[in-house]
């Protein structure tokens, strides 16, 4: 357990005054306060592991993309040794941005201000007018490289941290790894992005998006109600007809020590509809054949099944994680969408990048397994764009909600109103639950989001 401090804001408010750990309430002020924002950048984004992108975005030596780790711009580049490096996108000479491009390929990054040059791995190569020793002789060339972050690649996802001697990435994932493996490590070849990410700006605090991404289930019923009115979850007859999405909200929710969460939604009804049989009478293999995970075809199943334990396969055919987050600012969606052509999977990843106390950048990647047939990839992508991201008919509604919360958080009175996370699971894991972590069973609750705030609190009060 880390030793804790209790930061005091300039008006005397203690961090502990903003969150009530007993009654599970958080003051709205947290969603706009500039001082708190600065603390978050230092205590969360400069300390923990941050999701930056996917290795298939930079397949060749010298490829790079520019990304953000909290409020800092970083260069994510593939070096001449084929490894991926993440370095601060700031010239150590006088602080110019090293790369002003979003993407590209170059063996040498030359700062346009005075011409200092760096390798994709961040090493300093040299300064112009070498014989006059422009970079001086007080520091060695080794000391003049770009500041390098520590990198972890997991299932193709690129994470980095400035906490060079801090906890390992495995430690950070903790109990989530058992579940995440079933999402990101399903095939031998792995996944790929289907193109660069969509990006857009929302005038909202990053936490509005991120606490929601920690598996808020309730908002689906109201905010995304159109899904059952005219959208893919419209059902003829009684079941869920007339805009009721509650049948979709049963399952299990998983929350882990480091606030990675996921909503594991029941597949039984879909399997029953597809096969006409009782799921309990079907083997794991029969269930997978009837309803394979997003992007997996029946032909890809044998290889996939070999990669997992019986317990993991049980989860994948019963209640697979379909929506969830990685702390602090990542979200994933591995959803099964009913369409006239059958059930089609969509896979997307988001980063909600903080851009100030009331601004965030929404970054949306769409992915598929490398082995997924091209026709299916194209279908997955089109459905993904239609529902998620910039123009997505589902996420249009989310992105219009967050600015209002952020504005309300500035009101002299409303800043003291509390966000409430009091819908609690009163049961633990369902019988036969195969995986680790804290698990709630039944209708969606607030425990996953509450865990997000608990960990936020833990990091914000940790003593270095």
């Amino acid at each position, binding site marked *: 357990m880390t030793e804790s401090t209790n930061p005091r804001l300039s008006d005397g408010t203690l961090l502990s005054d903003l969150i009530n750990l007993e009654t599970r309430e958080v003051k709205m002020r947290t969603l706009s306060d500039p001082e708190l924002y600065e603390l978050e950048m230092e205590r969360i984004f400069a300390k923990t592991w941050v999701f930056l992108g996917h290795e298939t975005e930079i397949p060749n030596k010298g490829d790079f993309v520019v990304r953000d780790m909290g409020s800092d711009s970083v260069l994510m580049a593939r070096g001449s040794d084929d490894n991926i490096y993440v370095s601060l996108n700031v010239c150590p000479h006088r602080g110019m941005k090293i790369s*002003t*491009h*979003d*993407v*590209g390929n170059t063996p040498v990054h030359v700062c346009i201000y005075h011409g200092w040059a760096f390798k994709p791995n961040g090493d300093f190569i040299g300064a112009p007018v070498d014989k006059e020793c422009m970079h001086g002789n007080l520091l060695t060339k080794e000391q003049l490289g770009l500041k390098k972050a520590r990198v972890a690649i997991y299932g193709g996802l690129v994470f980095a941290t400035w906490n060079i001697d801090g906890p390992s990435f495995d430690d950070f994932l903790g109990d989530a790894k058992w579940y995440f493996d079933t999402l990101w490590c399903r095939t031998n070849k792995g996944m790929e*992005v*289907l*193109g*660069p*990410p*969509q*990006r*857009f*700006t*929302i*005038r909202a605090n990053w936490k509005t998006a991120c606490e929601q991404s920690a598996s808020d289930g309730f908002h689906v019923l*109201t*905010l*995304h*109600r*159109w899904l059952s*009115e*005219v*959208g893919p979850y419209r059902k003829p007859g009684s079941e869920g007809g007339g*805009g009721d999405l509650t049948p979709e909200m049963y399952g299990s929710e998983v929350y882990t020590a480091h606030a990675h969460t996921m909503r594991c939604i029941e597949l039984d009804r879909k399997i029953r509809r597809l096969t006409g049989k009782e799921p309990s009478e079907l083997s794991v293999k029969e269930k997978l054949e009837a309803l394979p995970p997003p992007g997996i075809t029946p032909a890809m199943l044998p290889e996939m099944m070999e990669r997992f334990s019986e317990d993991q396969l049980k989860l994948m055919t019963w209640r697979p994680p379909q929506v969830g987050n990685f702390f602090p600012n990542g979200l994933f969606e591995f959803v099964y969408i009913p369409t006239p052509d059958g059930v089609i999977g969509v896979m997307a990843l988001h980063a909600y990048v903080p851009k100030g106390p009331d601004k965030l*950048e929404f970054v949306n*990647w*769409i992915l598929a397994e490398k082995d997924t047939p*091209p*026709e299916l*990839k*194209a279908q997955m*992508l*089109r459905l993904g*764009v*239609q529902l998620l*991201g*910039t*123009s*997505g*008919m589902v*996420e*249009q*509604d989310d*992105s*219009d*909600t967050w*600015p*209002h919360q952020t504005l309300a958080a500035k009101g002299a009175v409303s800043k003291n109103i509390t966000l409430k996370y009091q819908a609690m699971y009163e049961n633990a894991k369902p019988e036969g639950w195969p995986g680790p972590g804290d698990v709630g069973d039944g209708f969606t609750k607030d425990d996953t989001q509450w865990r997000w705030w608990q960990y936020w609190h833990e990091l914000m009060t940790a003593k270095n």
Partner: protein
Amino acid sequence: MLQELLEPTPLPPSVRKNRIAIGSEAYNEVLNFLYDEAEMLDNLRLGEWAELLTKDLEYNAPLRHTRSTAHFAQTYSRNVQHLHENYGSMMMRVKRITDTKSAWGEDPPSRVKRMVSNVRVYTTDKPNELKVDSYLLVTRSRFDFDYFDLIPCERHDILRREGDSLMLARREILLDQVVIGTPNLGIIL
């Protein structure tokens, strides 16, 4: 292979010798089409607008990147795009707004002005199709916010004559911003 499946059908080039004179009857007809379309969309007459779409509609908005001058032509991405629609998916977008009580991203609706300018019209290889290039500046006002979201873009359209009216058969929208400065593309461009 995937690239081929995702890339929209390439648009015919805009060649000066195929230009239709500004002020000619055909040019004015196109201008009327664009102005009427803007009026319908600005006033939420989406059902009426949908009647102007051909069944083989392709409607796209590529992503862009900030890159060097030398790589200007490669600043577009047409695999993942901001909008990647066909007739069916476009009708779903329209239906979401017209047939539900829960299209919250545009309910209450934004006040929107679609300002169309710099219109150039070209003949194409197909006698019944015109290529139309235009600029579009969209101002979007949400709620009681005191600022406007600006969505400046360029449009490349194919208008097809069906009977005695023009129909929209293809549209590619080239947005100026790399990071779109409005919370969603919940409005039609």
